[in-house]
């Protein structure tokens, strides 16, 4: 049996409604910022529950543009998570600011308890990352932000409809950035991103920044970027938006199914604590195993036809490209430990119970010959 990670072929098995939209688009030629983009922005804002949504070229840009719009720039510090995808740190770096990492919790997102200590005179923004589709403890983030008067830009790239105490991720701070990359829960056929905000002034600034700073065709108010969600991709997004709630529920359901099985494997497999006040959207389903068993488990799963992955094996602060930030091995012990222990299994909405059973069975099979070492 093969259990694939990418489900795009299943997802777009009947692409006719999308092609119909593309045919219409080709007639009008409104390829950049056409009415399809506006429609998508309206629908996305409604889905997440904000006043505004702004379509941009990628999830990276969806983080970069709000920071820029808030006036974060050269030499400023932005506090973010040590365990995240490079795009979070890349967005901060791109505008000339410096990443200040903080360590992880057992549930793979930044430890908000460590936030206050990380604030310095140079801190200009906080960027919590709802990594894997798991919300950061936002009460604590909001408390620190308020205490120091710092804006929050949420990295919600992996967390569409991820929910903390009844509020959707991306809507807590000044702005939230989402990715529409083909592997995301709400995905288009290329790079794509969207920013949400309730602040109308920020919305206006972001619209300028994504389109060269153009006030109109001829007048340019600020130096801006070229970062637009393509109309053709908005067509794909518009088709998917009505399905997003179902997609999220299906992923939660699949995760619960894994949880039920793996929670019986105490000592072999360690699951993150499931906090009752959050609703994950399971962009990724991760669990931990003993460090010395991880790579062999991964190999066993891959050899068994299961496309298991590691998100990510090398923490950002240990990457060659980030060495100049001055961190040293051991600065983020929780992140380090997780990087050596985590495994991701497919959890998408197109995954069948049969495929899940096979994944569970293979994990059980692997551990049949091993000792219980996951806690160490």
């Amino acid at each position, binding site marked *: 049996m093969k259990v694939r990670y990418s489900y795009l072929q299943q997802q777009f098995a009947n692409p006719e409604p999308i*092609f119909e939209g593309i045919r219409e688009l080709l007639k009008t030629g409104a390829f950049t910022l056409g009415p399809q983009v506006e429609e998508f922005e309206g629908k996305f804002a409604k889905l997440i529950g904000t006043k505004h949504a702004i379509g941009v*070229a990628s999830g990276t840009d969806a983080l970069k543009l709000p920071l820029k719009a808030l006036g974060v720039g050269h030499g400023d510090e932005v506090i973010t998570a040590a365990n995240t995808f*490079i795009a979070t740190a890349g967005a901060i770096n791109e505008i000339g600011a410096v990443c200040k990492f903080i360590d992880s919790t057992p549930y793979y997102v930044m430890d908000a308890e460590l936030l206050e200590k990380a604030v310095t005179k140079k801190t200009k923004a906080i960027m919590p990352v709802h990594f894997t589709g798991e919300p950061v403890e936002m009460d604590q983030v909001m408390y620190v932000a308020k205490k120091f008067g710092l804006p929050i830009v949420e990295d919600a790239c992996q967390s569409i409809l991820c929910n903390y105490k009844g509020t959707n991720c991306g809507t807590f701070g000044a702005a939230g950035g989402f990715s529409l990359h083909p592997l995301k829960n709400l995905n288009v056929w290329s790079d794509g991103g969207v920013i949400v905000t309730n602040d109308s002034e920020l919305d206006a600034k972001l619209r300028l920044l994504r389109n060269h700073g153009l006030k109109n065709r001829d007048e340019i108010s600020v130096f801006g970027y*070229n*970062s637009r969600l393509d109309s053709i991709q908005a067509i794909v997004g518009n088709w998917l938006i009505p399905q997003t709630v179902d997609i999220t529920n299906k992923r939660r359901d699949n995760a619960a199914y894994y949880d039920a099985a793996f929670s019986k494997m105490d000592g072999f497999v360690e699951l993150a604590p499931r906090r009752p006040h959050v609703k994950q959207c399971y962009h990724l389903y991760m669990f931990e195993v003993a460090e010395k068993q991880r790579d062999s488990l991964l190999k066993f799963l891959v050899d068994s036809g299961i496309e298991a992955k590691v998100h990510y094996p090398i923490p950002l602060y240990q990457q060659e*490209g980030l060495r100049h930030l001055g961190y040293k091995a051991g600065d983020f012990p929780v992140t380090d430990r997780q990087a050596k222990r985590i495994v991701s299994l497919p959890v998408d909405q197109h995954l069948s119970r049969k495929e899940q059973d096979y994944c569970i069975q293979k994990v059980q099979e692997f551990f049949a010959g091993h000792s219980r070492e996951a806690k160490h």
Partner: protein
Amino acid sequence: MQVPYVNFSKQFQETREETLKAVVAVMERGDFILGKEVQEFEAAFAKMVGTKYAIGVANGTDSLIMCMKALGIEPGDEVITTPNSWISSASSIALIGARPVFVDVADDQNIDVSLIEAAITDKTQCIMPVHLTGRSSRMPEILEIAQRRKIPVLEDAAQSVGAITGGIKAGKGGLFSSFSLHPLKNLNAMGDAGIITTDSDEMGMRLRMYRNHGMRNRDEIDFWGYNSRLDTIQAAVLLPRLRQLPDVIEKRRAFAKRYTAGLAGVVECPVEREDEFHTYHVYVIQCDKRDQLQKALAEKGIETKIHYPIPIHLQKCAKDLGHKKGDFPVTERQAGRILSLPINQFLENDQIDFVIQGIREFYSHT
């Protein structure tokens, strides 16, 4: 008679089957990010320009930003360019914290080579000539200065794919060159897209990683990068269009020739020098009573444009650069006199003649 400035629906009719086929093929494979057609298009584009490398990116602004980043340009550095361009030439410089140093243009709307040396300081890290309107800048002269002063050249070839000046093809002369493949360009995608060409192994490698988060592979990051990738779908759309590009350019050149013959002595037409191959991304006349002419033509159903009515140094975004009216007299004079006539490849000769007749008529009354 209607003479539209662009005609996407006609382009779609002519390429409908191959366009949809390309999109379906990509969709069925699902390699939406840096997939098969991206590599194919890059190889075909590099071959067309004659460079070792071509790197597909998200748009023609990011391409400029990433090239300058690859050069190590930092806040405080200066980059020489022209003030009559699309905003990206200057904004790409400003966005990385460097200072755009403007040099006025010549009659051909490209950088006035005789003014470049006076603009070079010890902070100058790059010269960015803009190949405006579909004609490349005077590259032989620019390269002579750049080599002597040891300053790298980044060609902003966004509007001039296929152009040649002094035997040098646009995209082949500089250390690297930036192209836009925006829907309005001669070689156009169905959304934002861009591409960089270079012969440098180091820059080719660096840019390939820059556009993809600085990643060496899935797990290792060598340096800070961007997310700026040419979409596979756009590459698939661009591949057949790249093959059609010579025909597109020939058609535009034929219309340009017709305009120039029909408008001689009435307005100033672009003059193509003997060593130039102009691709006429835009056909720009320079004339008196420009705004009235534009209005009169619009009333006849003729759509014209102005590229661009407000020079960059006089835009609000550039106020920190401290320029004032009169700093770049040729650019400013042209801004009030230029008018872009319809020249897309989907027009017919009688439409061109209708435009010519409209312009002649306007000036015969005034």
